[in-house]
């Protein structure tokens, strides 16, 4: 049985479901497939906590949201994309409201908003501190009412089918049965999210292995700005569980071992008792995570079994605020650290959280390959530039999920059906999975050994601060790891729910993406946003007001090109916080 649909969506999180609904609403006669390696409600959108930005207050404006986003991104954002984004974000959030999202409310019944890092106005909509969870479940439940959407739950896509540069389907493995099938179609939308699992310490769920980015890269699409990796300043030690920025937006402080609000030493403003927008603890994530590194160097952090930490102090907020605005923070601290933030300090450290980079798309979600679209964290459109602002990613996946869905639907109406030639590609891929992977058996080393080495190479070379020598060495080591991964042990030869096979596939994807990150970082000889080079400490607009574009070379390693940034109304300027 080979399946056929007009539009195939890979990934069932926020972007994928929003895209599916957009296709269904654009043309109900189009058949839509949502192919996801997990049940949609397990997708990592579920873990987003703090909120979703969209200007709605009378004292706010679209231009201010755009300026905060562009300056927060250190001018690497494409401003045409940002302008479309800020217009459509509030509309999308309202649509979610109409679909039932339980947004937190003001006493009069209107939507409530909260402050957020790097935002000059209060514009972050929230559903307590489980915003992503509610957004995902609302989208998933709403998607059930569209008969044209067919789901392939727990199907892992392993290859895109490409005919003369045109994408016309996928090959996927059904985990429950082990069946390997071609699902052909006119358009494919990638919505698989990020790849935080390339690093050892991350907020990202186990499934965030960059599958969609790798699928696009292997098919010949460009990966854009892969060197820009966001460290969130407040993760719990050991687990890496995220403590939302909303904790600081509600008034939380970051303290070093002397109980001192150290951010005042890093050009982020003066400490005030209450939260001040675009200042101190409400500065952007890149600057806060960098400040942490300097505190470590000064010996002003606290030692923990899992390395140096600082303290997040929420005690002065009191139980009432914490329980109404940050109940999940309290629950997570209690469960995973055995502490109560109402009475105790929360140990935190920077943690890999988000990929600004991803599959290069235009403002309609179209990649360079006909028939291939991408939206959400897997894509780089780019509204996030060199550093994403907190609460911009949820509206991004709605706005660009919807846009990609609409664009793919219009494309699918006119596109020719996939040529029969792709059947042969599907057969090749099935053979590869069966013979090279399922038939491999004992290899030289375990998958987990290679994965751990990749993670530690990336933490050392592509962390908060980088330098040319370390990056160059990392590039060599990753090339070697790629070869070793091809002969790692796969003891499990079963067809049924074989998670060793899927781990091997994910590892291959992650190593290739790690290489694009390291090569892109090596080429960018400047410091901008989340990419800080100790050997090139200044921003260099002359040479690098441009996106890095990574293409896969036949030998396997990437080739890096540059693409100018689109500037519409905000010429490059200084990033000013706290004054």
């Amino acid at each position: 049985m080979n399946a056929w649909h007009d539009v195939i969506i890979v990934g069932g999180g926020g972007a994928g479901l929003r895209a599916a609904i957009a296709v269904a609403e654009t043309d109900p006669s189009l058949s839509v497939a949502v192919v996801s390696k997990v049940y949609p409600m397990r997708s990592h959108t579920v873990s987003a906590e703090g909120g979703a930005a969209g200007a709605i207050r009378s004292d706010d404006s679209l231009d201010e949201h755009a300026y905060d986003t562009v300056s927060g991104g250190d001018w690497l954002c494409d401003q045409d994309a940002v302008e479309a984004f800020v217009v459509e974000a509030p509309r999308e959030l309202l649509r979610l409201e109409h679909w039932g999202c339980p947004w937190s409310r003001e006493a009069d019944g209107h939507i409530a908003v909260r402050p957020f890092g790097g935002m000059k106005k209060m514009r972050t909509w929230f559903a307590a501190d489980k915003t992503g969870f509610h957004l995902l479940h609302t989208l998933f439940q709403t998607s059930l009412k569209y008969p044209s959407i067919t789901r392939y739950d727990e199907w892992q896509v392993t290859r895109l089918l490409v005919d003369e540069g045109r994408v016309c389907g996928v090959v996927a493995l059904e985990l429950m049965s082990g069946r390997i099938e071609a699902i052909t179609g006119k358009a494919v939308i990638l919505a698989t999210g990020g790849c935080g699992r390339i690093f050892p310490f991350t907020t990202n769920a186990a499934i965030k292995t960059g599958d969609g980015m790798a699928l696009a890269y292997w098919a010949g699409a460009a990966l854009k700005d892969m060197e820009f990796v966001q460290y969130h300043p407040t993760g719990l030690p050991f687990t890496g569980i995220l403590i939302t920025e909303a904790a600081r937006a509600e008034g939380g402080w970051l303290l070093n071992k002397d109980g001192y609000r150290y951010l005042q030493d890093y050009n982020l403003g003066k400490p005030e008792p209450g939260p001040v927008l675009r200042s101190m603890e409400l500065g952007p994530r890149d600057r806060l995570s960098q400040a942490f590194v300097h505190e470590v160097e000064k010996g002003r952090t606290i030692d923990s079994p899992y390395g140096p930490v600082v303290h997040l102090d929420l005690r002065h907020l009191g139980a009432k605020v914490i329980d109404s605005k940050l109940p999940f923070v309290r629950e997570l601290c209690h469960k995973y650290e055995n502490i109560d933030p109402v009475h105790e300090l929360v140990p935190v450290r920077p943690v890999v959280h988000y990929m600004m980079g991803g599959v290069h798309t235009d403002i309609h979600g179209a990649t360079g390959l006909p028939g291939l679209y991408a939206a959400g964290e897997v894509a780089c459109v780019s509204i996030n530039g060199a550093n994403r602002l907190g609460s911009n990613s949820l509206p991004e996946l709605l706005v660009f999920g919807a846009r990609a869905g609409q664009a793919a639907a219009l494309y699918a109406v006119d596109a020719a059906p996939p040529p029969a030639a792709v059947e042969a590609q599907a057969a090749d891929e099935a053979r590869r999975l069966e013979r090279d992977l399922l038939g491999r058996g004992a290899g030289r080393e375990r998958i987990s050994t290679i994965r751990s080495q990749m993670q530690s190479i990336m933490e050392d070379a592509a962390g908060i601060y980088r330098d040319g020598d370390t990056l160059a060495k990392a590039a060599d080591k990753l090339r070697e790891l790629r070869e070793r991964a091809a002969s790692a042990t796969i003891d499990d030869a079963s067809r049924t729910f074989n998670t060793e096979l899927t781990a091997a596939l994910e590892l291959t994807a992650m190593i290739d993406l790690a290489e694009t990150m390291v090569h892109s970082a090596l080429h960018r000889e400047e410091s901008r946003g989340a990419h800080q080079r100790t050997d090139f400490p200044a921003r260099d607009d002359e040479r690098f007001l441009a996106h890095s574009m990574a293409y896969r070379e036949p030998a396997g390693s990437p080739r890096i090109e540059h693409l100018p940034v689109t500037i519409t109304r905000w010429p490059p300027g200084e990033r000013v916080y706290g004054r």
Partner: protein
Amino acid sequence: MPDQITMRVARYRPEQEDTPTFDEYDVPLRKDWAVLDGLNYIKDELDGTLSYRWSCRMGICGSCGATVNGEPKLTCATFLTDYAPGPVRIEPLANFPIIRDLVVELTDFMHKLGKVRPWIIRDEEQTVEEGEYLQTPAELEEYKQFSMCINCMLCYSACPVYGLDPEFLGPAAIALAQRYNLDSRDEGADERLTVLSQPEGVWGCTYVGECSRACPKGVDPAGAIQRYKLTAATAAVKSLLMPWGRR
């Protein structure tokens, strides 16, 4: 505290064996290790063939439910030290067909979820230009609890009725229907009544209450079901008294 604990993990490989067996593994016993960390240690260091689901490891994605020493638990939010000195027994969730090792089949639940029409139903939909539907914090509070379900299936595993009668709609699906029925923006309660008031709907529940005890997120499906029985009964009486009228 000993520095190791034995995990007795249920194995079922349909190509190899007809019924589940157990394998034993010794894993480090560390203060902050969840049961899931123990499973990951086995997978990474001892036996790559063990299959189980997990993802967020922070108790929100609902993937990692299993039966731990006889009780349905999220393995990411249940800690090994609570079972020291061990051994601790890990089995798949009860009441579901087993696919492989700790992985159970959820097809039946996914089908039931759609049956209760879990989306906002309105006679007239407002446009985006008209802004939001107003909803006061008190109105939000009415249904909020039932919107917290993570679909982890612990309640189905705990439910003796579902164990005996797989046709029973079950706790999470009924609680989700109530989540929409109680939402001030929704007008779809009549449409959901036909599904909920069937024998395998709310009337299947014998109010054992195990579902609410098993829920890791503080949802009270048993309460939702009891409350809905009153609604369904009232509707039934009304339709007898006023067969020509709207319910």
